[in-house]
């Protein structure tokens, strides 16, 4: 009746995960109960759960990312504290638990923290920057989000029912085959990723279509903000790479569930094929993460330097170059498998070549700051911290792309330090820069600067204190994923890294304080103009938070940096453009399709993990019914009457007129004019 699921599945003998997981679920249930009792459910349902508004979906993605970041961070604390205690000693986490912790950490961080953060920010900002009303397929957008959430839910469910994979964040067979991992952990991993992966693929299709086909009139490719370019590149990579992940995991599933022999030790299976295919996805994946971050930094650095981005054309070329080359390098993750000089050299050199376009980006950011008037706001600090940190991480990346060097540090903590260096310094800093940068656009008030700056400095310090020792201990030969060790020389470094994690805890505390304080002081931090940072691209031309339809009339783009142009002209002429002729706007209707699909996917996934076949059938049938029902829907759009549009836009115009009156023409012009001689 319940397949493999028995009472034994609840890990009573492992109190730590049980309590931790139980606590999480209690909190979750408490939140749900509170929502229901306080009568917020209808609001949540109509305004968020069924929303197909890209801004709302972006916010939900970002929130999911932050919560999972917290979960991943707890795992990281456990890893570092275990290793700090485990010199000649068992530590407090037995192997079968420790192995789950680092596997879950890697999986959660990549798939459910970093990806949702980046996709969330793209969701929020790309249509606004393109000057349009929504993405190409709003309902699929909501489906993407809920499928990702399903994956996250399944991974976290493994805390309390059964267990998670112990086979690393990329489950290399034969260790992940049924023979060596007969428990459900790997199945949790596989189904969670298959479901979330489909959601991500839909996102990729959605955004490439949006960027290529839906832009404001006059916005040619070379007028798009760089963030849109990097989003395009990242989503092209999603379309190309995620099917590879799906196929590879499907093969492993066939092995585990139906006794196929793709990667087994018997029947002629070949585990090297898994390693090959998973990295054909895995390498592009890291650029899927970092490219949008590059875009965020481009926006932030240009805005806070008070200058257009330097070398826009080079930036675009570099972005697309990275996008292409990233598909030519995947073998660098298995130089030590013995493919020989030719193969290793070709892939090694291709890898190193990525340093060239990346370097171009770094230099262009540098020249953007050159001659600028830099305001050190929190987003700008994250950006500056990123440039320095990422250069170091990139350098160690190029180092391991030289095969003989990699033969010495592959899978060592040196490598762990490399990728945290680029991921934390690149992706995570990028996410925080993006969140603080666009937060006022999404909610109408700024985040508190003081707490944000504290969080930044502690993160920066914490990062270096944690990971510089790992570089060193990696060079001492310490390999990754060790639950215990007995080499005295490693110990001081491991302890130092343990101190670093304490500093990071401080950073987390400041980050959370920033959110709390900002929400409580929101009236103080309120921004009415819609343009709190003196921005340059179109998202700043509408109100904060933007109306559901984003723009009352689609902006007519006549050059690069369209909003800067609009602003300059307004100040120059001391008046706003003439009031447009408001027309009714058709917007997509809310739809529960995404949520319900995800609901059935959760059921199906859970049933598959535990071999509850009747429930699998039920889930699949439900999904098909939803599909037909969705197809049958007649009215896909609702119309916002012209009066409502006019009302919203007039309110915005009033505020803008006030702002205009406050900005003295000569003063503003002087402030933004080129200074020919040092004053």
């Amino acid at each position, binding site marked *: 009746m319940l397949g493999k699921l028995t009472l034994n599945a609840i890990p009573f003998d492992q109190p730590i995960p049980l309590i931790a997981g139980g606590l999480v679920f209690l909190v979750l249930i408490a939140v749900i109960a509170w929502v229901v009792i306080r009568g917020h459910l209808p609001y949540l349902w109509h305004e968020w759960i069924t929303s197909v508004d890209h801004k709302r979906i972006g916010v939900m993605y970002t929130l999911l990312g932050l919560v999972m970041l917290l979960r991943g961070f707890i795992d990281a604390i456990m890893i570092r504290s275990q290793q700090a205690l485990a010199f000649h000693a068992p530590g407090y986490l037995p192997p079968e638990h420790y192995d789950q912790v680092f596997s879950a950490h890697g999986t959660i961080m990549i798939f459910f923290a970093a990806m949702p953060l980046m996709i969330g920010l793209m969701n929020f900002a790309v249509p606004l920057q393109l000057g349009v009303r929504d993405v190409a397929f709003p309902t699929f957008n909501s489906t993407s989000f809920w499928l990702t959430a399903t994956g996250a839910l399944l991974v976290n469910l493994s805390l309390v029912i059964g267990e998670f994979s112990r086979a690393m964040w990329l489950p290399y067979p034969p260790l992940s085959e049924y023979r060596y991992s007969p428990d459900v952990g790997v199945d949790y991993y596989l189904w969670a990723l298959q479901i979330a992966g489909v959601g991500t693929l839909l996102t990729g299709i959605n955004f490439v279509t949006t960027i290529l086909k839906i832009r404001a009139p006059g916005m040619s490719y070379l007028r798009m903000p760089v963030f849109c370019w990097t989003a395009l590149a990242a989503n092209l990579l999603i379309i*190309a790479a995620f099917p590879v992940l799906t196929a590879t995991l499907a093969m492993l599933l066939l092995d585990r569930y139906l006794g196929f022999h793709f990667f087994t030790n018997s029947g002629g299976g070949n585990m*090297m094929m898994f390693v090959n295919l998973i990295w*054909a996805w895995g390498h592009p994946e890291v650029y899927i993460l970092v490219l949008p971050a590059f875009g965020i930094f481009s926006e932030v650095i240009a805005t806070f330097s008070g200058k257009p981005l330097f070398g826009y054309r080079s930036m675009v070329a570099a972005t697309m170059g990275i996008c292409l080359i990233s598909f*030519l390098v995947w*073998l660098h993750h298995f130089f030590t498998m*013995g493919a*020989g000089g030719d*193969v290793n050299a070709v892939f090694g050199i291709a890898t190193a070549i990525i340093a060239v376009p990346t370097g171009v980006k770094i230099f262009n950011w540098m020249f953007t700051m050159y001659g600028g008037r830099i305001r050190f706001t929190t987003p700008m600090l994250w950006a500056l911290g990123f440039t320095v940190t990422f250069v170091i991480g990139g350098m160690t990346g190029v180092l391991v792309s030289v095969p003989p060097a990699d033969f010495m540090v592959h899978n060592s903590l040196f490598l762990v330090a490399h990728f945290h260096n680029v991921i934390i310094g690149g992706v995570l800093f990028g996410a925080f820069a993006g969140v603080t940068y666009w937060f006022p656009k999404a909610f109408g008030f700024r985040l508190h600067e003081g707490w944000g700056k504290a969080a930044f400095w502690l993160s920066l310090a914490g990062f270096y204190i944690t990971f510089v020792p790992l570089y060193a201990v990696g060079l001492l030969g310490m390999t990754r994923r060790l639950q215990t060790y007995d080499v005295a020389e490693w110990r001081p470094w491991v302890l130092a890294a343990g101190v670093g994690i304490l500093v990071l805890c401080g950073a987390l505390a400041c980050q959370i304080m920033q959110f709390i304080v900002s929400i409580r002081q929101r009236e103080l931090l309120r921004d009415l103009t819609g343009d709190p940072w003196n921005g340059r691209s179109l998202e700043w031309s509408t109100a904060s938070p933007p109306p559901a339809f984003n723009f009352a009339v689609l902006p007519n783009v006549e050059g690069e940096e369209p909003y800067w142009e609009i602003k300059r002209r307004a100040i120059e002429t001391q008046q706003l453009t003439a009031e447009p002729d408001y027309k009714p706007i058709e917007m997509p209707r809310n739809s529960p399709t995404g949520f319900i699909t995800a609901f059935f996917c959760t059921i199906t996934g859970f049933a598959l993990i535990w071999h509850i076949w009747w429930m699998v059938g039920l889930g699949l049938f439900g999904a098909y019914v939803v599909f037909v029902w969705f197809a049958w829907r007649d009215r896909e759009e609702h119309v916002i009457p012209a009066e409502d549009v006019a009302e919203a836009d007039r309110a915005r115009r009033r505020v803008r007129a006030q702002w205009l009156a406050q900005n003295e023409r000569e003063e503003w012009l002087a402030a933004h004019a080129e200074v020919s001689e040092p004053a």
Partner: protein
Amino acid sequence: MTDERNADDEGNVGDVGPGFMEAADHSVRQGIQGYLMGFALAALLTVASFYVLHTTLIWGPGIVVMLGVLAVAQIGVHLVFFMHLTTAPDNTNNVLALAFGILIVVLIIGGSIWIMNRLDERLMPIEQTTGQTMQMP
């Protein structure tokens, strides 16, 4: 009828989605003719593939190459006659996307085969250790 079509057509002129015949220019007869032509060509190429397999006209090891070429040709026929892909400017995005897809497919299949062949050559035990034949020293 025309209203509906126009409503759907508004927006950027000179841009066509994949799979669309230029409906306005095509009569039913032209439409059918196009599909017939594609069908005939595809059938011909399929027959050729099955025929080539057992032919003695082509040097043995070359047959595989011929099969590959025929398959590519037939895929091309499908793309042009059934999916209405053209190289006209209004199809730029469709063709670019296809080119990107083909590039990825070639990289993944080509790269995997190259890598895996090298690994197989080197890791499948051709060079034996002396162990199994050596006697006690």
